[in-house]
C-alpha cells in the first residue's frame, strides 16, 4: 500500500524564555493509506506538537515530512493551507467551531473554500447523518459539548479528506458522550475509507486503532500493532 504520511528524523525545539526546549527529537515513522493510527503518551510528551507538524500546521527544525506525496516542509504557509483544504481533516479536543457561524455554516466552510457549489446540501446531509438534522441554524453556544463535537465530525468529513487528524477528540466530553462520539468517528471513518490519526492519552480509545505509537519525553518509546 502507498504511504500517506512519511516522517523522517523529525526535530522540534521551542524557545522558552532564554533557553531552547527540545519538544521532539529523532522521530521517524510511516502511515499507510486507510490505516488507523494512534499517538499516545503522557502530558508534555509532545503528542500535540507532533500532530501539528504532521498536518503541516508548523515547521520542524529539521527532518522530513511527506504528506499525501508532498514534501510539506518546503511549502509556503498558504500552499500548506491549500493542501490541508484538499486532503486533510481535523477534529479538535475543544471542538473549535467558529462561534459566529451556525452549525450548518461551520460544516459548509471547508467545502466553500474549495468552491463547491453543493456545500450547503452536503452539509445538511452530513449533519443529518450525525443526528443533528434539526439543529442547522443553531450557533455553537446553543449546542451541548457532544453536539458540538458531532458538528466538528461532520465538518471534518465534509471534504472527504485523505487523512483525518483527531486531537483528543473525547478529552472535553464525559465518558458516555465520549463513547458515542468515538463510535460515530470510527463508523464515519470506515464508511469513507479515510486514514485516521488520533492523538490521545486514553489507551482504550487507542486500542480501537490498528497501530499505536507511544511517545515519552519527545522521543518514540515503541510502536505497537493492535
Amino acid at each position, binding site marked *: 500500500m502507498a504511504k500517506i504520511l512519511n516522517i523522517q528524523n523529525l526535530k522540534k525545539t*521551542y524557545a*522558552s524564555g532564554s533557553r531552547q526546549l527540545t519538544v521532539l527529537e529523532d522521530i521517524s515513522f510511516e502511515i499507510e493509506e486507510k490505516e488507523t493510527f494512534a499517538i499516545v503518551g503522557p502530558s508534555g510528551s509532545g503528542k*500535540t*506538537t507532533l*500532530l*501539528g507538524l504532521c*498536518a503541516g*500546521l*508548523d515547521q520542524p527544525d529539521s527532518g522530513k515530512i511527506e504528506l499525501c*506525496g*508532498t514534501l510539506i516542509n518546503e511549502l509556503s*504557509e*498558504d*500552499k500548506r*493551507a*491549500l*493542501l*490541508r*483544504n*484538499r486532503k*486533510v481533516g*481535523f477534529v*479538535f*479536543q*475543544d471542538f*473549535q*467551531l*467558529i*462561534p*459566529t*457561524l*451556525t452549525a450548518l*455554516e461551520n460544516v459548509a*466552510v*471547508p467545502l*466553500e*473554500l*474549495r*468552491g*463547491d457549489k453543493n456545500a450547503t446540501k452536503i452539509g445538511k446531509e452530513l449533519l443529518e447523518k450525525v443526528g443533528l438534522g434539526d439543529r442547522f441554524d443553531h*450557533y*455553537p*453556544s446553543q449546542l451541548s459539548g457532544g453536539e458540538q463535537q458531532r458538528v466538528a465530525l461532520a*465538518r471534518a468529513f465534509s471534504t472527504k479528506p485523505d487523512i483525518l487528524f483527531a*486531537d483528543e477528540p473525547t478529552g472535553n466530553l464525559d465518558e458516555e458522550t465520549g463513547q458515542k462520539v468515538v463510535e460515530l468517528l470510527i463508523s464515519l471513518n470506515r464508511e469513507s475509507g479515510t486514514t485516521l490519526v488520533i492523538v490521545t492519552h486514553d489507551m482504550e480509545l487507542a486500542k480501537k486503532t490498528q497501530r499505536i505509537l507511544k511517545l515519552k519525553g519527545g522521543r518514540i518509546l515503541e510502536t505497537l500493532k493492535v
Partner: protein
Amino acid sequence: MKEIDSKAGFKWLLKMAFRDGKASKRKLVLFMASIVLGIAAVVSIQSFSNNLKENIALQSKSLMGADYIIDSDKIPNKRVSFIMDSLGGPEAREINFASMAAFPGNEGTKLVRVRGIEGNFPLYGELETEPASAAKEFQQEASALVDATLMLQLGIKVGDKIKIGNLVLPVGGALKSVPGSAAIFSSIAPPVLVPHRLIEKTGLVQVGSRIGYKYYFLADPKLDLEKFDEKIDPILDANDADLDTHTSTSERMGRRYENFGKFLNLVAFIALLLGCIGIASAIHIYIKEKLRSVAVLKCLGATKKQSFLIYLIQIAIIGLVGGIFGTALGLALQQLFPFILQDILPVDVAIAFYPRTIFMGILLGVLMSLLFALYPLMATLYVSPLQALRVDNTEKSKSGRAALLVLGGIFLFIFLFAFWLLEDWKYSIFFILGIIITFSLLAGTAHLFMKAIKKNFPSRWGFVSRQSLLNLFRPQNQTLILVLAIGIGTFLISTLYFTKDLLLAQSSLEAQAKSPNMILLDVQTEQQKAVSNTINSQNLPVLENIPIVTMSVENLKGRSVNEIREDTTSKVNGWILQHEFRTTYRDSLISSEELEEGKWIGQKTEGNLIPISVSKNFAEDAEVQIGDQIDFNVQGVLLSTKVGSIRIVDWSRMQLNFSVVFPTGVLEEAPQFRVLTTKVPDENSSAALQQSLVEKFPNVTIIDLRQVLTLIEQILSKISWLINFMAFFSILTGIIVLIGAVRTSKYQRIKENVLLRTLGARSDQILKILALEYFYLGLIGALTGILLSLISSLLLGYFVFETAFIPSWIPFFVLLPGIIVLVMGIGLSNSLSVIKSPPLVVLRKESR
C-alpha cells in the same frame, strides 16, 4: 505536486464577512458608534460651511444691491467723477452718516445710520417694507423708512414724525431689510432711508463730519469684474475712492466666516481623531476574540490572505454603513445651525445637500475604519493555525516594517485631512507634530510611571493595594494603551475647554467700575463745555474728554504718498497712504497701551520734528522705525514729526484707542472735535441723557456701549454654543473610546479574577483590586492629559492668541475626578458579571 488553488473567491469572502458580522453585531456597535459620531461632526460642519459660502456667493448682488459700488468718504473729485461718467454713470447714489434721531411726540432717541437715496436703488434684491408700497413711495412723498425693529422698540407707527438734525419727516414705512445693512450692526445703528434731496436740510453735512458717498452701478454682463477691479481700483484709490464688486465682497465676507469655520472644523477633526482611536481600540478587542476562529479557518485550509480579507471586508462594510449613518446624522444636524446662528450670519442660509460632502463623509468612514483597523487586523496574518491545537507559544511577532508602514499611512491620512481642512501645509504639519509629541509624551509618561512603580514598589502595603498595583505591570499589561487612550481623550477635551476659555477671555469685557459705557462722538470744541454741563446736570460724571484731530499722511520717510503709491515695489500698506487718521494728544500712556520701543514723550520738546508715538501695527504697515520722519497734512497745514515711540495697543478693549498719539503742546489750536465719555447706571438715565443731548446738540453722536456689549455677548454665546456642541461630539466619542479601552483589558482581567476567585479571594477583595487599578489608570491618564493640555494652551495663548492665559480650575476639579469616576465606573460595570458569577461558569464561558 500539481499547482493547487483555492476556489473560494470574493463572493465567498463577502459571504463569510456577512455571516460572521451578523453574529458579532453587538461587539461592532462600539466601532460603528465611533465612526458615526466622528463623521457626523465633520460632515455637519463641512456641509454647513459649504452652504454658507455658496449662499453668500449666490446672494452677493442682492447683499450689495449692485454689480459694483464706488464709494468714498469725500465728495468725488474731478478724476473720480470722470471715471464714473465714462462707466455710464451710476444707476443710484447714496449719502450716509451716523446721527441721532429723535421722534417728536415720542420719548425715544436713537443712534441711526441715515442713508439718503436717489435713483433706482437697489439694483438687485429689494427693499422690504411694511406697507410694501412704502418702498416706492417714500421718494415722492418725502418720507422716511425706519428700521422695523427700532419702530417696534420705540413704539413708532407709520405717520409718526422722525427728526434728524434739522429735518423733520413723516415715517413712511417700516424697513424690514435693505441691501448694504448688515443685520448684526443694525441693532447699534439701525438704518433710516430718506430721499437724497432732503439730506442737505438736516444741516449735518459739514466739513469734518463723517459722511460716506456711494454710487451704485450695473455692469455689462460680459464684463470681467476681477480684471475691471484690478484696473480701476488703483486709480480710484489714488483719488480717495474705492471700488467694491459683488464678487470681491462675497469673497471678503466668505473669508471672515471661513476662519470661524476652520476652527470648528478642527474641533470636528478632533472628534474624528478620537473616533479613530475608538476604532483602533474596538477592532483590537474584536480581532483578539477572532484569532481562534482565524486559526481554525487556517486549519481548514483558508490562506493568510483569505482570512485577512474576510475581516477587512467586514470592517470596510461597517465603515461604509457607519459613514452613511454618520453623514445622514451630520446632514440632519446642520439644519440646526441656521436657527442658532441666523443673527450673526450675513445671509439666509438655505441648506442644500452637496454630493461632494456626502461622498466625502462616506468615503471618510470607509478609509478611516480601514486605516485604523489595519494594525490590529495584521494579527490575523500572523496567527498560527497551531493555536487551534492549544499550542500557544508560537505567536510570531508582527512585522516591524508593516507596522511602520501602517503608522506612516495613518499620519499621512491625518496630514492630508488636516491640509484639506486648513488649506495650509505648514499648519497641517504643526498639527501632525502636535499629535506626535502628545502621543510620545503620554507614552513616555506611562512608561516612566510603570518604571517608578517597579523601582519603588510598596511591598509593605496590604494584599489588595499591592495586587492592584502589580496588575499595572504584569506581563502583557494594557497600562500603556489605557493611559494613552484616557490621556488623549482627556487632553483633547481639556484643550478644547482651555481654548474656549482663551477665546472667550479675549473678547470678554472687563466690567470695571470706572470704565465708561457711553461715548459721545463729534462734539465740537465750542460745545464741549455745554455738553459737559448737560451730563453733570443729570448727576453723571464726565470720565474722559478726548480731543480728536483728523489728518492724513503726506510724506513717509521723505517720500511723498503719491510717489510711494506709484512704486510697485513698495510694501507700505495702502491704508496708511489714504486713511484719514483720527489722532489725539496727551501726556501719558493709557491702560490699554504698553511701550514696546523708544521713549514716551508726553510734551513737545525743542527741535524741528515733533516726537509722536505710533501703534505697533501702524509701524509695521508703514514700515517705519524709531527716528523715521513722517509728515502729516492737518487740514492744509503740514506737520513734520518723527517716530519717538512704538506702542502695543490692545485693540480688543472697549475704549478709544489711537494709531497715532501726539505730545501735548502741538495740536491744541488745530481744528478739532471732542469725544466725551460717561458711565450711566441704567436704561432710564441713559434714555434721559440721550434725549436732552439730542435736543440741544443734534450733531453729537451717542453710542451706548451697553448695547454693543449685549450684542457682543449675544454673538459670543451663539459661538460658544456651537463650540460646546462640537465639543460634545468629542466628549461622547471620548467616552466610547474609554469603554473600548477598558473592554480591551477586560478580556485579560477576567481570567485573572477567575483565578483569584478560584484561589479563594472574596468578591469585595476582587472589587477593591479592580476599583483601585482603574483608579490608578484614570488618575495617571487624566492627569497627564490635563497637564499636557495646560502646557499646550499656554503656548497657544502666547503664540496664537497673544494673550496671557489664566487657566481655570474646572478641568482639575471637574474633569479629573470625572474621568477617574468614569474609568472606574466603566471598568467595574464591565467586570460585574465576572465578580458575581461562580468561577466555574466563567471558566467554561471563557473556554468557548
